[in-house]
């Protein structure tokens, strides 16, 4: 299908886009009135144009935008530019992929082992927990360590020393990884679509000292502090003498469902936390 000799076919494209002047429009109108091949060509180009314009918005991989936002916020706070990841960009894992294989970084060696006093009122570092979880979702363990370093634990150590929080399955989600630092543990669960982190540390919640932006509410008999950021939900709750912080880019009710299925802490919690730190410390020669 080709227009007559001497006619510039680019005019048909410009005509479709209403990017012609009056003279050009008149020329095209005249041609279309008399030339079936020009009409056919215009129809084909219009079809391609229409197809292109109906292409859908592309959804980025799960967690990518949240990671960008976190990066921007963090760097803006620090007055810095974002630092490209070694590979050039955050390597965002697909929703169905398993959490990246964990790796200890040199920075972890600097993590001191200090245990909080048992049952002391504590304020969990909610923003750091949130950033670590979101970074892990978007970029794997290394990205998570850049946000907040924690050392990986083997599942055997988690089973032996992690207690209830490190249970293999929780509210329909499977345990993927366990990390520890200081007196806190992070257990990462996945259900094939979403990741959720549960951070556990000994103590009770200093409710009045939690940072602004969240709200305390009561669900059944549970008191929780709820906070939302970048599409993720974070909840702080207290069970006996253990503080749990749950984070996930999942509906609040799903987070709450996981929280209510967590066990109350056992009397040996402090011992367990100390043991976790010892195990991790031995593993990395601290």
């Amino acid at each position, binding site marked *: 299908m080709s227009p007559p000799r001497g006619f510039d*076919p*680019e005019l*048909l*494209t*410009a005509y479709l*886009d209403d*990017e012609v002047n009056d003279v050009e429009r008149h020329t095209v109108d005249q041609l279309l009135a008399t030339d079936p091949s020009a009409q056919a060509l215009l129809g*084909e*180009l219009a*079809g*391609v*144009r229409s*197809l*292109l*314009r109906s*292409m859908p*918005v*592309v*959804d*980025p*991989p799960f967690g*990518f*935008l949240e990671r*960008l*936002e976190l*990066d*921007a*916020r963090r*760097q*803006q706070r620090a007055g810095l*530019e*974002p630092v*490209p*990841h070694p590979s*050039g*960009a*955050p*390597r*965002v*894992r*697909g929703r*169905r*992929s398993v959490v990246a294989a964990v790796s200890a970084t040199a920075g972890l060696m600097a993590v001191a082992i200090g245990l909080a006093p048992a049952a002391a009122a504590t304020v969990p570092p909610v923003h750091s927990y949130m950033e670590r979880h979101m970074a892990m979702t978007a970029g794997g363990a290394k990205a998570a360590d850049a946000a907040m370093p924690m050392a990986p634990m083997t599942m055997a150590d988690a089973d032996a020393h992690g207690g209830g929080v490190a249970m293999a399955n929780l509210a329909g989600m499977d345990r993927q990884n366990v990390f520890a630092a200081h007196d806190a543990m992070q257990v990462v669960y996945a259900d094939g679509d979403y990741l959720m982190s549960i951070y556990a540390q000994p103590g009770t919640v200093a409710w009045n000292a939690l940072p602004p932006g969240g709200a305390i509410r009561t669900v059944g008999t549970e008191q929780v502090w709820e906070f939302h950021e*970048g599409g993720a939900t974070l909840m702080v709750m207290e069970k006996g003498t253990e503080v749990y912080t749950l984070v996930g880019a999942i509906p609040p009710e799903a987070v709450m469902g996981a929280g209510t299925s967590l066990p109350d802490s056992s009397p040996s919690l402090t011992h367990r936390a100390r043991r976790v730190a010892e195990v991790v410390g031995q593993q990395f020669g601290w």
Partner: protein
Amino acid sequence: MNESREVDEVPTWEDVARRYGRFLYTVAYRLTGNHEEAQDLVQEVLLRVNRGLAAYQPGSFEGWLSRIATNAFLDDVRRKKRRPVVALPDDAERVLPGAVGADEALDASDLPDYLEHALRGLPPEFRVAVVLCDVVGLSYQEISEALDVPVGTVRSRIHRGRSSLRDVLK
């Protein structure tokens, strides 16, 4: 996606990531044709945005972002062209991976439709012009300014791009 919005106030960098992240990603994906390079491109664009936010003049913010994205994309295309081609070793079969990884398999299952394949096959200059016109919705004049080429060149690239797509899709 085809209507660019006028922005009177300069958004913060965080706003850009939050409010325009999906838009940017779509443009990046249409330009690069794959998720991995789209992520690289979005991050590069945000770096450039951060440097240029102070100089932003109120107007079509999406147009401004698109201009940065296309320039970053074309810079990358030129950079890749300059890279020397590394010959495969004699025992290439031994060193080449035999199976795709999980992420690649996921991408493969996510393969875009025939139109996306065809768009991906266009020369970069044509693809950029078509994406700016049909995905972003810029006028020829805006594309001309974004790419720093005459309007006639824009018209030609869009026509040749769409014509190539028509030929492929026939």
